[in-house]
């Protein structure tokens, strides 16, 4: 499935893919007004994502990755063009496009259980209390936090907080899961563990994933396609890289594949030679 959906799609407009597009970023530009005139963050960005795809977005800081994802989640609106989910334009945030925020965004006064319950309760008001409790417990167990449900966020580690945030996001069964550098602040071991957990969960849930990352290896391990952005201002999608490794993926196995280094070097070349970050800015 991953192989067939991984169709390179630079131009959404003339996309002739045989699958119906699920999420379409259609000629989107984002311009911010500033004191010295307008500042164009993104210019004419096109991207088509199919249902169940795992997309990673990579690029230097300031290239508008977060802006792009914010327009999918609905926190920000395109100045030109539009973003459509299943044919409907995105106007505001909603639980069908759940976000795992960069700083976890857990409420410190609620327990781990209550944090997840808050979302489930809001999205499924018609379900019984027992049913909602079951959903919360199931998802906390899935991320390995069955024993820490009564703890408050300040009492748990960063890795555990991120697990809660992921459980909260998945418990409401979103169509699209948006992750903004979810593992950036974690140590290497926790990071690898969570990457594997995320892949496993994604395999079971098959929701569409959009994830910002700074880590090429992370992207190669997780994604079906890697979206590489050019530098701002007026950033655009430079290239979309297909990552054809068979799923389920084994980290050791794919790192031995000769293709892995080809892809890795290609992405590195894109980021550090062709679109190297200009520090003088």
């Amino acid at each position: 499935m991953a192989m067939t959906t991984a169709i390179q799609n630079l131009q959404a407009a003339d996309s002739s893919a045989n699958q119906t597009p699920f999420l379409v970023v259609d000629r989107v530009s984002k311009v911010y007004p500033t004191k010295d005139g307008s500042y164009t963050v993104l210019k004419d960005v096109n991207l088509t994502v199919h249902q169940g795809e795992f997309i990673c977005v990579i690029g230097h800081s300031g290239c508008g990755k977060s802006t792009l994802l914010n327009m999918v989640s609905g926190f920000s609106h395109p100045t030109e063009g539009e973003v459509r989910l299943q044919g409907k334009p995105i106007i505001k945030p909603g639980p069908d496009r759940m976000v795992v925020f960069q700083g976890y965004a857990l409420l410190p006064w609620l327990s781990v259980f209550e944090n997840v319950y808050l979302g489930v309760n809001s999205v499924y008001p018609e379900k019984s209390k027992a049913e909602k409790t079951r959903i919360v417990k199931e998802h906390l167990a899935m991320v390995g936090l069955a024993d820490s449900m009564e703890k408050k966020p300040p009492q748990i580690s960063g890795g555990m907080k991120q697990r809660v945030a992921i459980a909260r996001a998945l418990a409401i069964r979103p169509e699209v899961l948006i992750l903004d550098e979810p593992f950036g602040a974690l140590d290497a071991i926790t990071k690898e563990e969570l990457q594997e957990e995320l892949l496993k969960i994604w395999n079971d849930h098959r929701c569409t994933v959009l994830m910002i990352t700074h880590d090429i290896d992370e992207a190669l391990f997780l994604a079906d396609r890697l979206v590489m952005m050019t530098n701002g201002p007026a950033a655009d999608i430079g290239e979309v890289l297909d990552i054809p490794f068979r799923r389920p993926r084994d980290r050791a196995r794919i790192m031995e594949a000769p293709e892995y280094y080809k892809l890795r070097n290609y992405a590195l070349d894109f980021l550090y030679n062709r679109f190297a970050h200009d520090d003088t800015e």
Partner: protein
Amino acid sequence: MTLAQKRTPTTSTRKPVNSKLMQRLDDIVSPLIALIILLAIWQVLASIPGLTTLPTPVRVVQETWMPLIAYPFYNNGGTDKGLFWQVMSSLQRVAIGYSLAAIVGISLGIVVGMNQRVAKSLDPIFQILRTVPPLAWVPIALAALQQNQPSAIFVIFITALWPILINTAVGVRQIPADYNNVAQVLQLPKSEYFFKILFPAALPYIFTGLRISIGLAWLAIIAAEIVMSGIVGIGFFIWNAYQNNQVSEIILALVYIGLVGWLLDKMMERLQMLILPSGQR
């Protein structure tokens, strides 16, 4: 600094109970020694003939022992009551005025904090009114309300109101964007947002306001009572003693006022510790 830090744990591991007790004892003994020295200086200065007409501390105790120190609960009717009753009357007024200020201040503060336009319109008025000293409100209160008791309560209310109101509004405005984003993406119902996000997020600020205000309310009652003749209360007690040239009684009343004010602050601190989760203090 580093030396001290290194040394403390070694001594405390050797004799944990003993050193803790010593620490406790030290917390009491040091201020006690300071107090004795200050009293001694006062005793000496007040004993020098021709320097001041203030009584020495020994004379204060001698002159007020019967009946004020020995019988704080006596009650001869009218305003001739023991200091316990005088303090209680004042505290009662503070309790009413302060509670009203808390209710109005928190509710209005939330409205102001949530609504930019309301905030813009009202902020200058608040900023000006909050600098009006409690005593300046007294004639207005008396003119508007005619009677002593409601006027005194009004003066406390208006003095205690501003810090609660302003801090609550700031607390609501300072709710981290992440929390509001979570509320938006989950599309939390209004009531749920209020009780699970807005109120707990603003709570530390509300407590800051409440703690500043309890001190101000206690200051205000003394000021208000001094100009309101013929009521039971520690403020009027001082004024009455001054009229009768009983300086020792005034000094004793000051000690009571200070102790009660200190206790009120400690009470609020306790409440804060009890209610606020550890991560938010």
